């Protein structure tokens, strides 16, 4: 099957007038301020097959939003090749728009002066959604996002979280082939976040929708995406499956043991030395709680044996490094 998204050597730069800080700088800038090129995306290449679910991650300013805005036809790329569903987004914006759904979490932008229900029927007409599809998508969205009370209210009276839910529902009404979610769960509480993820999963399952998602809440990604693309300073840092991502970066496993009584100092020292000899690292001793990090899965069993032999253990837990910590570590290194 053809690829949903093909990106080759994609670039985008902004031009900013530079100016010095403070009042005097502002006055000087009136007379003269040099133009400075700020590259937001530098030579990005990847492709996404139909039906793939991809999480786009990166720090602020890594180029995620700019990339999504180019993919959706909002911004005109400065260079490179870009095909989305076989179309050139900026030039064929309207054609593309009919087949994609977009949510910008930072600024939910339903039509400000129109009640949500009217917006929904307007979008139905705008996208020519077949009655059967509309019945299904609108019903599911309403159900999964608890929209019933919100439908009658003009958008300007909704809170950010409510608007976000409505915006999400509005973006999937036409069962798009491809859906872009830029920070879709920002401003949502824990329950609403779960509902939003359910809706996204349902959509991908039901319609085979291709998904591209950026988020700061990496749980969004672990729950909905199979593939991860990691951007840094406008370039590609990693591209591969979520499992591979974790394997690649998260070899680290943790063992947390709670001893029934605090060990004597010599016993503790002996345990620490033998763990170290094994290649593990003691991260913390807090009261009766010991945290050990094992660089490989295979070492975990041996480390556990040493811990159990050292004293009476009340509780034993194993932890994988959370994806959030991984990302944090990667950026700390880079």
């Amino acid at each position: 099957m053809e690829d949903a998204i093909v990106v080759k050597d994609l670039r985008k730069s902004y031009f900013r007038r530079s100016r010095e800080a403070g009042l005097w700088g502002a006055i000087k800038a009136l007379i003269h301020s040099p133009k400075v090129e700020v590259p937001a995306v530098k030579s990005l290449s990847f492709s996404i097959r139909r039906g793939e679910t991809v999480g786009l991650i990166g720090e602020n300013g890594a180029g995620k939003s700019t990339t999504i805005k180019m993919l959706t036809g909002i911004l005109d790329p400065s260079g490179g090749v870009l095909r989305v569903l076989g179309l050139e987004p900026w030039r064929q914006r309207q054609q593309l728009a009919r087949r994609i759904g977009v949510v910008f979490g930072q600024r939910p932008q339903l039509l400000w002066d129109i009640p949500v229900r009217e917006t929904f029927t307007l979008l139905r007409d705008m996208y020519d959604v077949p009655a059967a599809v509309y019945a299904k998508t609108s019903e599911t969205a309403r159900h999964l996002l608890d929209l019933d009370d919100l439908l009658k209210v003009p958008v300007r009276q909704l809170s950010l979280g409510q608007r976000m839910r409505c915006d999400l529902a509005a973006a999937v009404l036409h069962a798009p082939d491809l859906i872009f979610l830029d920070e879709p769960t920002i401003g949502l509480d824990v329950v609403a976040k779960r509902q939003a993820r359910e809706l996204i999963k349902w959509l991908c399952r039901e319609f085979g929708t291709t998904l591209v998602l950026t988020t700061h809440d990496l749980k969004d990604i672990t729950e909905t995406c199979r593939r991860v693309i990691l951007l840094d300073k406008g370039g590609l840092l990693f591209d591969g499956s979520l499992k591979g991502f974790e394997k690649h970066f998260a070899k680290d496993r943790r063992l947390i043991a709670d001893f029934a009584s605090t060990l004597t100092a010599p016993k503790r020292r002996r345990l620490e030395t033998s763990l170290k000899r094994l290649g593990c690292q003691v991260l913390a001793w807090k009261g009766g709680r010991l945290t050990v990090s094992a660089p490989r899965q295979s070492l975990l069993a041996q480390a556990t044996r040493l811990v159990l032999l050292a004293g009476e253990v009340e509780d034993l837990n194993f932890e994988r490094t959370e994806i959030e910590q991984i990302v944090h570590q990667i950026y700390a290194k880079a």
Partner: protein
Amino acid sequence: MGWRKELSICFKAFNAALQTKLEYRADFVLGLTGAIGFQAASLGMLSVLLHSTELLGGWRGPEILLLFGLTALTQGLSELFFNHIWYVPLYVVRGQFDRLLTYPVSTLPFFLVTSPELHAFGNLIAGLTLFSVGAIKLGLPWTVWALLPWWAVCGCLIHTAVLTLCGALSFKIVGSYGQHYWVSNALLQASRYPLNIYPRFMQGLLLVLLPFGLINYVPASALTQRLPLALAIIAPALAAALCVSVAWTAFNHGLRYYESSGS
């Protein structure tokens, strides 16, 4: 998408937005007073002028009322249907065109109709009143009323097109309040007085480059036997068509410079 379809979508969106706005009764009342007050103030200024001199460029009071009336009427129409155009600078600064650009419709018309302003009714009422008073005092024939809608629509298109050009400029001049709209607004206010009181270059500017003169001066000149009627019927329509196509092109060109916001 066919233009018929787009038109019907725009109409639905306008309809829904207008209904919502009408629910805010205080807005409506204040908008009416504000707009009518504004027109009254400009009448005040006119009265000061006429207190000094009886004829302004050879035009009598009631004749000038026709000019004022036509401008207020077209302004009201434009505010009713296309008032959103004033918000382009704000949308550019805040990157709010993002969502609109992901809809499968032409951006400009859909954007224009989605925020009607209720003070439009104040200007419509004031405009109709001013024009009627002038027409009755001058004893104009009834055919005037048949021509009025035509001039109002052409005028509204010219007015909106000029504002759209300002909007297109906002993509390049990124400033939060769109001061350049006020240049065009100042010229619109000026064009309410008989154009022949101004120097030649101003007349040229207001009849050709930013043809506000075709909104009121040309029609009112015909009504007061200063110009042939046929000219006053055809010229505004031609100007409107030209202005709209230029503005449309400029706006879509401007979108290329849209930078959104954030990272």
